[in-house]
């Protein structure tokens, strides 16, 4: 059904009988072009748009700095330093089993690392699907240990990325809930979030873009 501009203008003015108006509305649902035509014929729209788009005053918006979520890196400053202890950043050893050998020795290493991770999670008091840490794309689980930080257990889980660079995932008990955020710490790319009883920090000598991927994938693996 095609409508003249005149009919559509009368529709917009509310001057059509109800049955006709309903018919146009029904057609509009199926016909995007008709919808656009009607919008273009609307006498009121342009005047209102021109006026209202003068708002808001740009200075008003600029003053609206979105409140920074509690900066995870402020709290994490000391933890970041503890987190990279013993990881051999910059000179990552080949590990106990050498390069990426796809054989039984690699499997043994993984299960040993998984046991270490379980011990770490228990010490910090976190319940998380540790097996998922074996399946994180781009990261190979190497080992885990419990360090201390300010009198509380700090878990350190070490991965190797595809190039053999170390990426450390650290955790401490925490009641906060903070969204994943990225930033630089100690000259290294890092990612941090809190949830499910812990604060989590990922840090390593990798490019920022790669750290973002690691952050998202680790968070997804741990929290689903």
């Amino acid at each position: 059904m095609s409508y003249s501009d005149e009919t559509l203008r009368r529709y917009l003015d509310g001057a059509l009988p109800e049955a006709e108006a309903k018919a146009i509305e029904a057609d509009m649902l199926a016909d995007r072009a008709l919808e656009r035509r009607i919008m273009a014929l609307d006498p009121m729209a342009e005047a209102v748009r021109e006026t209202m788009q003068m708002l808001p005053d740009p200075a008003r918006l600029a003053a609206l700095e979105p409140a920074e979520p509690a900066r995870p890196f402020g709290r994490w400053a000391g933890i970041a330093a503890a987190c990279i202890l013993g990881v051999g950043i910059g000179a990552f050893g080949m590990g106990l089993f050498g390069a990426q050998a796809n054989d039984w020795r690699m499997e043994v290493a993984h299960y040993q690392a998984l046991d270490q991770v379980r011990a770490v999670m228990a010490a910090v008091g976190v319940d998380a699907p540790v097996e998922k840490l074996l399946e994180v794309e781009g990261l190979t689980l190497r080992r885990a240990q419990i360090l201390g930080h300010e009198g509380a257990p700090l878990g350190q889980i070490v991965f190797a990325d595809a190039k053999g660079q170390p990426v450390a995932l650290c955790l401490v008990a925490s009641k906060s809930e903070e969204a994943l955020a990225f930033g630089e710490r100690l000259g290294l790319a890092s990612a941090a979030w809190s949830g499910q009883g812990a604060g989590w920090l990922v840090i390593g000598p990798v490019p920022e873009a790669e750290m973002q991927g690691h952050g998202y994938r680790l968070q997804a693996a741990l929290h689903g």
Partner: protein
Amino acid sequence: MGAFFSDRGLKREIAGHLPAIWRFGLSLSGSPDAADDLAQATMLRALEKSGQYREDGRLVGWLMTICRSIWLNELRAARIRKTGALDGAEVEALADIRPGPEANIFAAEVFEKVMALPEAQRSAVELVFVEQFTYSEAAQILDVPIGTIMSRLHAARRTLAPLNEAGAGLKEARE
């Protein structure tokens, strides 16, 4: 799980839509201060929920939905308790932000008439006339049938109609 954004990239994209979000917040609340709160809260919430954003729709439509949700679930009740009325806009605050005649001689009148509309009509006008969402998109954002959008716009047009005549008179005078 959907595409993931770099926080900074998404923040920049959202910032580009902030004026529209602010205007929508103003249309919902009738208050420039509430619009400030809504714009800030929407931006924060969108960043928190960025993992849930499906790139199938338009980002700005998703942001509008978040804004409306915050208004309905969080701010609206508090504001009604505070001011004792919803459709009575905060006259002074609005006078502060009203466009002046140097922009366009009718801007102040248009602004006052639009802000005097009831919330339901005002938000429909804002989404369709000002931000140029289609009727269907506006219906989705406001969570009403498309017919409801049309009837709200009809009612708004009737109220605003005198502006049309005044504007036409000015145009003729200039020609």
